[in-house]
């Protein structure tokens, strides 16, 4: 079982510039575990302390937002494409 994970610019420092990483995981959560083993600190950039995907991160499996799928339990079939993309926001007046 191999899936491909597309790495966004802010995480490429961790992956030493690699843009596309192959993982052998059955679901998204396992894929993130594997990436964290290979690139320590990877998980903390995507998930909060409760294991929820951070507010400014969107994760897609085969072009579908995992919020509409099974979240971290979304299965990764052989050849699945995982995209991690920033949820861009326009910002506002800083809160004091």
């Amino acid at each position, binding site marked *: 079982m191999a899936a491909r994970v597309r790495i966004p610019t*802010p995480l490429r420092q961790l992956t030493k510039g690699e843009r596309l990483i192959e993982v052998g995981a059955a679901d998204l959560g396992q894929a993130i575990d594997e990436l964290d083993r290979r690139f320590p600190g990877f998980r903390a950039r995507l998930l909060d302390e409760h294991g929820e995907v951070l507010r*400014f991160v969107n994760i897609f499996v085969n072009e579908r937002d995992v*919020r509409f799928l099974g979240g971290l339990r979304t299965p990764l079939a052989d050849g699945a494409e995982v995209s991690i993309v920033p949820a*861009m926001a*326009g*910002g*506002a*007046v800083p809160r004091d």
Partner: protein
Amino acid sequence: MGATGLVCRECGRRYALDPIFVCDACFGPLEVEYDHDGLNGEALRTRILSGPPSIWRYQDFLPVQRVPAWDLAPGYTPLVRAERLGKALGLNRLYLKDDTRNPTWSFKDRVVACAVAAARMFRFDVLSCASTGNLANAVAAHAAKAGLRAVVFIPTGIERAKVVATSMYRPTIVEVEGTYDDVNRLCLEIGEEHRWAIANVNVRPYYSEGAKTLGFEVAEQLGWQAPDRVVAPVGSGNMFVKIHKGLEEFQQLGVIAAHRVRMTGAQAEGCGPVATAYRAQTDTVVPVIPETLAKSIAIGNPADGHYVLDIARRSGGAVESVTDHETVEAIRLLAETEGLFTEPTGGVTVGVLRKLALAGAVDPDETVVAIISGIGLKALEAVESHLPAAVRIKPTLASFEERVLQPAGA
């Protein structure tokens, strides 16, 4: 004087003025910071009043420099007193910000003017965007004026006139099989791999600042004061957030007096993730698959949704939604009372104001400004089946009297 750098909205990390939009540390959005050289109040008002009748009169508050040869002069649109609509809604001091009067007939010209100036600052050759229609239209026109190549990405199923009007400027139009949210994700991925100025992606910190000018103009046109309430449509939420930011900047710098503006967001019921979260009193905006007549705000995963909720709550405003039926009724009411024909998004805005006013949630004596963000001619299919056909007659006086005068009771 002017922009000094970028700062992460969430963690405060600072960056140079580059074509970047996300914090490397926390994925938070980047925001432009300014230094106003100690200028305030009267000095800033004088500088504004000596500027051109366009968004560029607020140059001191924008992150990019006007490029005279590229300028389509967007903004400085009329703020109209709406007495007849106000009477219908029971509001005594209602104004409409008529942003249909822009170079490509929507508010998007404001933000795109800033994006094209950013494209020049960073020496990009291609101007691009992920769009529900109006943004593509504005990008294509501004790129044409600047002599840049335009490549615009739209979802399938948007209004025909938006595609035709965009095509006129000869961009490459890429129709993506999916929703706006799919288009947006694709453009984020394209921005990672190709050196293009994508208006609402990698030059977003600059682009988005253009929307502050709506807030600036409203304050200036009310005689240098903030209204009691602004009602604005919420798609990505950027316009809503930046109107608020503009009014806050004016207050912080003493351009206008401090005043609480009830920021009120309008969404379509078929794509109302922020209104749903507002009603449920949660901070979590759950994405939806859009199903609405109001294509230009059919964004199921709004980038600024969380900030919209925060501002609406803190300011004593609200986020409300209306059905497609209420939207069409509101488009008609606006046209019939004020002579202003808006696209469905303007109908959503007026519809939400109507709903809140009829529920007694708006004080009749509040100064209310409703943002009418785009023109109805680009979305005829939304209304045409609801309208009566023309009265057809023979070219005779008898036919006129029989078919026109008699039914009209004249």
